[in-house]
């Protein structure tokens, strides 16, 4: 079990700053990154400039949040 893999040679000097190995972090970052971008898209931009699915229901539902969170809206 080694936490020090991604750190340079100075790792042995490190005392109190734990790191998360990049190999462990990568799949979480990739998967959650995709989910988060999708979620942000539906709140911020869907059924404005781009519509998936067509209609206005999502736009209307999150309408006030879209305005208040600073996303372009009309």
């Amino acid at each position, binding site marked *: *079990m080694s936490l020090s893999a991604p750190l340079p040679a100075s790792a*042995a000097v490190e005392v109190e700053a*734990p790191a998360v190995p990049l190999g462990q972090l990568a799949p*979480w970052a990739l998967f959650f990154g995709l989910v988060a971008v999708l979620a942000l898209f539906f709140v911020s931009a869907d059924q404005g400039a781009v519509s998936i699915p067509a209609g206005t229901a999502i736009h209307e539902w999150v309408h006030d949040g879209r305005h208040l969170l600073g*996303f*372009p*809206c009309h």
Partner: protein
Amino acid sequence: MTTIHGTSAPVSAPLLSARALLVRGLVAGLVAGLLAFAVGFLVGEPAIDDAIALEESASAAPAASSETADHSHADGTATHSHDESTGEEAGGHSHGDEEEGGISRATQKGWGLLTATVVVGTALGGLVALVAAGVMGRLGRAGRRIRPTESVAFVALAGFVAVALVPFLKYPAAPPAVGSGDTIGSRTGLYFAFLLVSVVAAVAATYLGQRLWATAGAYAGVVGGVLAYVVVVGTAAALMPAVNELGDFPADVLWSFRLGSALTLTAMWAGIGVVLAGLVGRLHAQQAATQARRDLAASL
């Protein structure tokens, strides 16, 4: 590092794992979303109501002459409606409470706003946690790397500046009734392009600052990194076109709305930073305590 074992000793996994940090980020984001909803509902919604009332009183007059052509928020059929009436009445649009296919203002202000803030808060909270997980133990100089709580504070603050504050300064939030439906495509493109520039510049500036910190010290690192970000973002802001569709929208309502919007965003990012820093700090303390016990046992 706290655990360096040459042999494959059966050590329990460290508490500060990617999964543990992500879970705490989601929790912090959920709390931040609720907080942002409270602030948005109390501070932002009155201005939105004012803006929609202004829009409807303005569209009531020309509606008699040209009935459908112009896009208006009270006009439920085209693309968009702020109220539930279908807008086929002759003169003034009624914006009462009858449900006709649309979503009522009460729903937009309540469950709708709550949905938006909680979804955005949870997504941002998770992203902040994962970025902080990548940063912790890596930024800083050898022998004094950034600690978990510090990295959460840094990422939340940098995220607030790069994702919320700077885009707000260039393309500020616009209330209902401001912004034409015809330009939603270009406005969306400009906003997200500038957001992308800001985020990429923040990441690059952090990398540059890190390099400078290692070679020329903390002062040079911090000043150099911040300066690099400001120059890149300032140049992009100067080069990219402005959006001004305000017309004769009243300045006091605009100010109230933008204040409410800025406070909503601030509440969200502050909530993420404060809650996640607390949760991660506690986790780090637990990990340190476990390690101390293990070291003691090993030394006996």
